[in-house]
């Protein structure tokens, strides 16, 4: 067995070594496991927190938008609580991943400065942990649908597609933020702000149709608007996402590819600028 390594300056950010990333899959799993363990270790109720958090978010959103503001649920005709949960389902993966991936490399700088491994493993491990939150919201939806006696519509067959788009959006955002945060620490403040604004600028607890027509185009500049609408439509039916939404899906794919290149570029100087 002979492994040959050549170390030399590489200037080409478009050369991404996927094969090497695959070789480090054991590390990816180990780091994912570590994140998961550490998150719930030493807490009295452990994993239960992973359920309590989304439940309260759903309750408060539904109370404010459904009970107080009475924005309705578009033409789905489902209870507002379920409507909000389905909305949050599209949002949650993106939000969790962006929130955690942003600081992930700074958090792992002890490792980055002392040992070599493809740095992409770090945000990717966050991407895997974030699936837990996504899975829990899906479970809550299933529970609520059984409770209300609502059967999924035919559009459910599009759910995997829209979830995939939601995941790619999350990955794109997470990878961008992890690389940007090392380059510019300002993003440590920008990310939470983006998430807070995004939570209300995205039709999670209200239908996009509640947004005045004249704002509609700007509304869909937020790529998450289309994603959230899409996920909810596939679960609950009603009006399919606006055609503007498909533009944002295209933008998402481009952003995802660019995120890999940008990360690759920053990766080379990571240990020097941390």
């Amino acid at each position, binding site marked *: 067995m002979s492994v040959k390594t050549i170390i030399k300056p590489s200037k080409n950010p478009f050369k991404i070594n996927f094969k090497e990333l695959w070789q480090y899959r*054991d590390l990816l799993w*180990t780091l994912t496991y*570590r994140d998961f363990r*550490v998150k719930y270790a030493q807490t009295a109720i452990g994993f239960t927190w992973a359920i309590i958090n989304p439940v309260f978010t759903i309750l408060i959103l539904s109370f404010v938008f459904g009970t107080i503001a009475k924005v309705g649920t578009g033409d789905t005709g489902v209870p507002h609580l379920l409507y909000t949960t389905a909305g949050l389902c599209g949002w949650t993966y993106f939000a969790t991943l962006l929130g955690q991936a942003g600081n992930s490399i700074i958090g792992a700088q002890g490792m980055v400065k002392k040992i070599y491994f493809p740095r992409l493993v770090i945000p990717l491990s966050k991407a895997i942990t974030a699936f837990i939150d996504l899975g829990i919201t899906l479970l809550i939806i299933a529970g609520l649908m059984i409770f209300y006696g609502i059967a999924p519509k035919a559009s459910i067959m599009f759910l995997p597609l829209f979830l995939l788009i939601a995941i790619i959006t999350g990955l794109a955002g997470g990878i961008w933020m992890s690389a940007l945060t090392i380059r510019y620490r300002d993003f440590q403040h920008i990310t939470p702000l983006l998430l807070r604004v995004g939570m209300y600028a995205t039709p999670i607890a209200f239908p996009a149709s509640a947004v005045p027509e004249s704002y509609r185009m700007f509304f869909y500049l937020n790529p998450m608007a289309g994603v959230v609408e899409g996920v909810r439509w596939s679960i609950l039916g009603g009006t399919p996402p606006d055609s503007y939404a498909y533009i944002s899906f295209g933008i998402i794919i481009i952003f995802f590819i660019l995120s890999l290149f940008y990360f690759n570029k920053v990766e080379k100087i990571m*240990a020097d*600028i941390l």
Partner: protein
Amino acid sequence: MSKTTIKVENISKKYTLGMIGSGSLRESISLGASKLFGKKTEEISQKEFWALRDINFEVKQGEVVGIIGKNGAGKSTLLKVLSRITQPTTGQITIDGRIASLLEVGTGFHPELSGRENIFLNGAILGMDRKEIKSKFDEIVEFSGVEKFLDTPVKRYSSGMYVRLAFAVAAHLEPEILVIDEVLSVGDAEFQKKCLGKMNDVAKGGRTVLFVSHNMAAVRDLCSSGIVLNHGEVVFSGKTEDSINYYLESLNEDISTTGEIEWPIEKAKGKEEMRLLAVRLKNEEGKVQSVFRSDKKIKLEIEYLLVKDIGEMRINVQIRTKDGSILFATSTHDIEPKDKLAGRHICHTWLPANFFNQSNYKVAIQAGIPQVKQLLKIDNYLDFSIEHYLGTGSRLNKLLPGYTAPVMNWETKYINNDAISPHKE
């Protein structure tokens, strides 16, 4: 077997201080803006620093090479480049074989996780796969001696246990090429010995090892050849013993800027009547330096300005150990006339030869008028380090314990043999 396993060709590494590419968001935006409007960006001052310059060497299979040099000579940067943590600016390194680097023990250890979990975590980070770790698990646990605490979070470990566990994982790495930083300087003496033994096994197992250390005794014990770095360049490579000698000799002729600290008058230290202008450490020839051979005395020079005449002023100097405790103190009050005229002054003393141990020390200075006021708050101003040197042939193989290592004269006198020879009646 003399296959070349590591071939380093023209490796250089440049760091840019205050550079584009690590600047703040505002800088990047304004830089982008000025590019956009076609403005020249030459004003952005770039200070370049070459941590490594044109490094060339080859390591053959089975060789154990010690990389030695002073702090800042480029050892760590070279290791980082070899371990692929940072990219070289120019040049190429070809490595033939599975390489693992150990720049730290316990990388990635998480305090909340148990010893068992951390073994798997750390192993994965060091590049072992799960199967490999599983097969060596018992061996690792036995080597570390923490069996009883395997399921305790490592944050409850004593620092000794922590290091032992961390090292145990590292010691069971089985790459063809191993790059090690000074990880041996951790842990208690007995465990260090065990680690050295393990390292020796690794080296004798025909693997190639690159070993960076300040500990000349360890380099001598382990390495078959040495490379001496200075200011980012290879200044010597050859047999271990020759390399160590070259390094120790070179300490004597070193011109280091760090043996000196100076302030312009407007920025001088001290707010009252006195301003501290400079502190310097010089060798016997009057050259400023920061690393001294233990057999040479050191001149400590303090330059200061008095704004007006002062009576009874006193400068106190403390020589501190690297952990900050006071080794001894000395004061100008002891011998000097007490009244001082306004103007520039320079005073000096000699720190004795054959007195310090091989270690780092700090020079702290304070000044005041006894019982009246303080003129200068106590502060550490300079660091210096001592390398043990007792002349060729009589060099100590192991370091002595203790903060100082004065060379003592011992005399033995023969009295008689009354106690042994039988009594005469």
